[in-house]
């Protein structure tokens, strides 16, 4: 029998608010264990949660970007279960009235398929358990307790592992642009659980699903979904039955293992959180957030093509990180010449970033200085090689390009007499090469240009050097 895959996603995203969802503690990653904590996030008796308004704002922003309707009156609920990383023994979450509902996200590909978003809800993260094999004990770190999370629940609309990854990449990009999360899968600030089931092609009924957990990269997710679909198909073909269960993916073993079955499923005894009041969101607030929404990457790409005439490839590279796109826009606004700016960022700047292991979010370069550099080049004041070095200086030492060029005398030499003098000297010193050239060795021309440039300390306009050298050789 031929089967098709049906998958749905639950994506947890840690929000990058400065403080936690229900107390004033920092959300910073890392830190000595149990230093980013207070009586509230460690669930001390008698403490009460107070909702961080920024979390609501981030949730609304995300909901709007994912075409959701925003629930005007929403509430928090308690999800009760015992685990040492959960100090209150309940997680404050949203079951009955989540903040965002019924949205969608279009994923790239031939069909531009729309994936339904069932809901987005806010909740608090739990702490971390660290097993100490030396002392054979488990230690608890509550630093992560109370870090705000959004859970973005999709409809079971995925038909392949590729679609799952395409959706996650698109979601990742949007969340980064919204500035609501740093979305680091390795640090767990973006985590995806995938519900996987298979069914005979053409069937309209859903098969029994399993929930796959613990994938911490896109690759792992792709492999886990592919593996799980295959496992289920083999099971069914062998006359077996798929059990509804949660499975843990082991990326090293390239296999998944059952964690708990539905029979042992927890009864979370959800009920409305009595310590928090229901939240009313008026349309004024939603509209204020909407009008303050950043332009999303897809909109940027089509605008860059339309407005600046950039090729699609350039728009992809420039929008691959929000910081690059913003830099591109800022520099272009200052000096025009979008293609020049794009090339400089895509080739020279990104090389400098790679060489210095700098991630886009840590990029720090003054757009005004980059614009001044572009102007120096396009006005013919310096040549491209000097421009390249100058970018290096701006990038590493934040030099002022105009002052630097003046101080170091890097202005392009366009004076024919000066160039001619230097060319004459080169021709006199390299008779052999001149003869080679005249004997048909074109390579020799390049060598002579190089020597002339060297003599002019690299500051000459290469076109001028070319022209004068050719004139003299042809004579």
């Amino acid at each position: 029998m031929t089967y098709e895959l049906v998958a749905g996603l639950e994506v947890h995203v840690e929000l990058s608010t400065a403080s936690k969802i229900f107390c004033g503690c920092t959300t910073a990653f890392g830190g000595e264990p149990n230093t980013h904590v207070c009586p509230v996030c460690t669930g001390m008796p008698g403490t009460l949660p107070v909702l961080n308004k920024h979390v609501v704002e981030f949730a609304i922003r995300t909901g709007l970007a994912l075409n959701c309707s925003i629930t005007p009156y929403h509430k928090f609920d308690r999800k009760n279960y015992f685990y040492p990383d959960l100090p209150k023994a309940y997680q404050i979450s949203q079951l009955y009235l989540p903040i965002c509902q019924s949205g969608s996200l279009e994923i790239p590909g031939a069909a531009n398929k729309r994936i339904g978003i069932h809901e987005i809800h806010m909740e608090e993260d739990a702490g971390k358990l660290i097993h100490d094999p030396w002392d054979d004990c488990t230690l608890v770190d509550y630093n992560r307790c109370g870090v705000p999370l959004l859970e973005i629940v999709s409809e079971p609309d995925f038909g392949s592992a590729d679609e799952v990854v395409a959706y996650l990449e698109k979601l990742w990009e949007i969340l980064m642009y919204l500035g609501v999360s740093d979305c680091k899968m390795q640090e767990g600030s973006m985590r995806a659980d995938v519900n996987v089931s298979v069914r005979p092609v053409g069937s309209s009924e859903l098969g029994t699903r399993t929930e796959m957990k613990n994938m911490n990269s896109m690759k792992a997710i792709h492999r886990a979904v592919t593996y799980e679909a295959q496992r289920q198909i083999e099971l069914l073909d062998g006359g077996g039955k798929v059990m509804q269960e949660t499975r843990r993916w082991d990326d090293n073993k390239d296999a998944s293992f059952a964690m708990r079955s539905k029979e042992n499923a927890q009864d979370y005894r959800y009920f409305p959180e009595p310590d928090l009041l229901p939240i009313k969101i008026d349309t004024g607030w939603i509209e204020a957030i909407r009008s303050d929404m950043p332009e999303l990457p897809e909109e940027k790409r089509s605008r860059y093509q339309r407005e600046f005439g950039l090729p699609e490839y350039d728009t992809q590279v420039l929008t691959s990180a929000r910081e690059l796109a913003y830099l591109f826009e800022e520099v272009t606004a200052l000096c025009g010449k979008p293609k020049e700016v794009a090339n400089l960022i895509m080739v020279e700047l990104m090389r400098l970033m790679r060489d210095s292991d700098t991630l886009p979010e840590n990029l720090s370069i003054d757009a005004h200085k980059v614009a001044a550099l572009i102007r120096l080049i396009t006005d013919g004041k310096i040549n491209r090689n000097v421009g390249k070095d100058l970018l290096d200086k701006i990038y590493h030492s934040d030099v002022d390009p105009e002052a630097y060029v003046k101080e170091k005398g890097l202005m392009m030499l366009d004076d024919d007499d000066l160039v001619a003098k230097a060319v004459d000297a080169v021709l006199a010193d390299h008779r052999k090469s001149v003869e080679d050239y005249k004997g048909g060795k074109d390579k020799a021309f390049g060598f002579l240009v190089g020597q002339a440039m060297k003599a002019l300390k690299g500051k000459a306009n290469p076109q001028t050097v070319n022209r004068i050298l050719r004139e003299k050789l042809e004579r």
Partner: protein
Amino acid sequence: MDFLDKTALEIGGLIRQKELGVVEATRHALERIEETEPQVNAYIQVLEEQALAQAGTVQKRIDSGEALSPLAGVPMGLKDNICTKGIGTTCGSRMLEGFRPPYSATVAKKLEDAGAVLLGKLNMDEFAMGGSTETSWFGPTKNPWNPGHVPGGSSGGGAAAVAVGSAFYALGSDTGGSIRQPCSFCGISGIKPTYGAVSRYGLVAYASSLDQIGPMGRSIQDCAAILSLLEGHDNRDSTSVQRPPLDFSRSFGGDVNGLRIGVPKGYFGDGLDADVKEPILRAAKMLESLGAVVEEFDLPIADYAVPAYYVVACAEASSNLSRYDGVKYGFRSEAGDTLQDVYYNSRSEGFGIEVKRRIMLGSFVLSSGYYDAYYKKGLQVRGLIQQSFQHAFEAYDMILSPNAPTTAYKLGENISDPLKMYLGDIHTVSVNLAGLPAVTVPCGFGKGGLPVGLQLIGRPFDEPTLVRAAHAFQMQTDYHKQHPQLAKGGNAK
């Protein structure tokens, strides 16, 4: 000076006028504690040294001319479910024996700022679950009027201490009657404030949507003064309400002219003991004679208040008490090797029977398949009770009722019959379900000379009108001025 005859405001006045030193008042209270504790057991912990040191500090603040409050320097006690930084807070439970909170409750801080002197932490039913203070891990408190009887609960320690003079006032908490019923049983005054009037931050939660902290004192005037210190929005408690302060300036004129008082017929049926009914109805007559309009009426849904209360309160409690798992603080069982065993054994050994009963009840009503039939229904009934009160307050300014169907019963009499114990809450729980304020004042004595209290229930944030009526009543009566004659080393009179 006979301290037993003095209210907290009078003590505060003497201190302000330098006729009494704070240390002297504190020393007196500590002596009274020493004298009465063997028979009463009102305190879980007495903070002798700290109280004297604090008294010295407060005296200095007063001497330096710092304007503190009318109650500055007056020694008092806190129910042991109110967190006090660095000071053991047990909730009357083995589970929290030795737990010292790293922070203070908002009310504790407010009183400290106002110059209160903390004598100690008061006994209570375990996690405020009970109406007799018999479920305390630290042994029952006895009723000073007759140590063979319970003081009521769960704030029984506070009620007994105020009655016997081992504190000038106390803070209790009221989830289903836990301030009013013990005040009634011990012959003192108390206020259960409107839900949201007083911050719950630092009150160890029993049932979050019902819990309120409130004052217990020797007169309703004391209680109003204390409440003025406690109330107000707290940005650490989202359920505390932002509003102007309660205005008691017109509460002490002694008149009740034109006040419309409703008396719910259903509260005075067969379940009510005659020796309670009689003083209550006499009190109603007195208010009428003072100019109030008193009328009987029907409060229909009231019969369902007790079941709805136990469903809602236990559901919340089952969740609130889940954090006591033996992992982070408090009691941890020595037995067991696995995480599951640590949870199981710590909770089995750390909690008493009544707490376990309510946790099981609450877990059951929230569990899948039963949620709609119990918890959801409980919430619906709660809504109907709220409506039914709203309706009543269209016709009346306040509702007059008993606090309990009986006077203080004998120790051990009801402890093995939970249903009977629960039904004792019939007159108080609906007030919590509706989030309303209520006051209680002593209004007479029943069989064996045990006190009876009068409950007045009001509109949200209308504590000033309730206090006005209660104060007018206290101006005409001296029940609140009578004190138990606790015999030295023996039983009461």
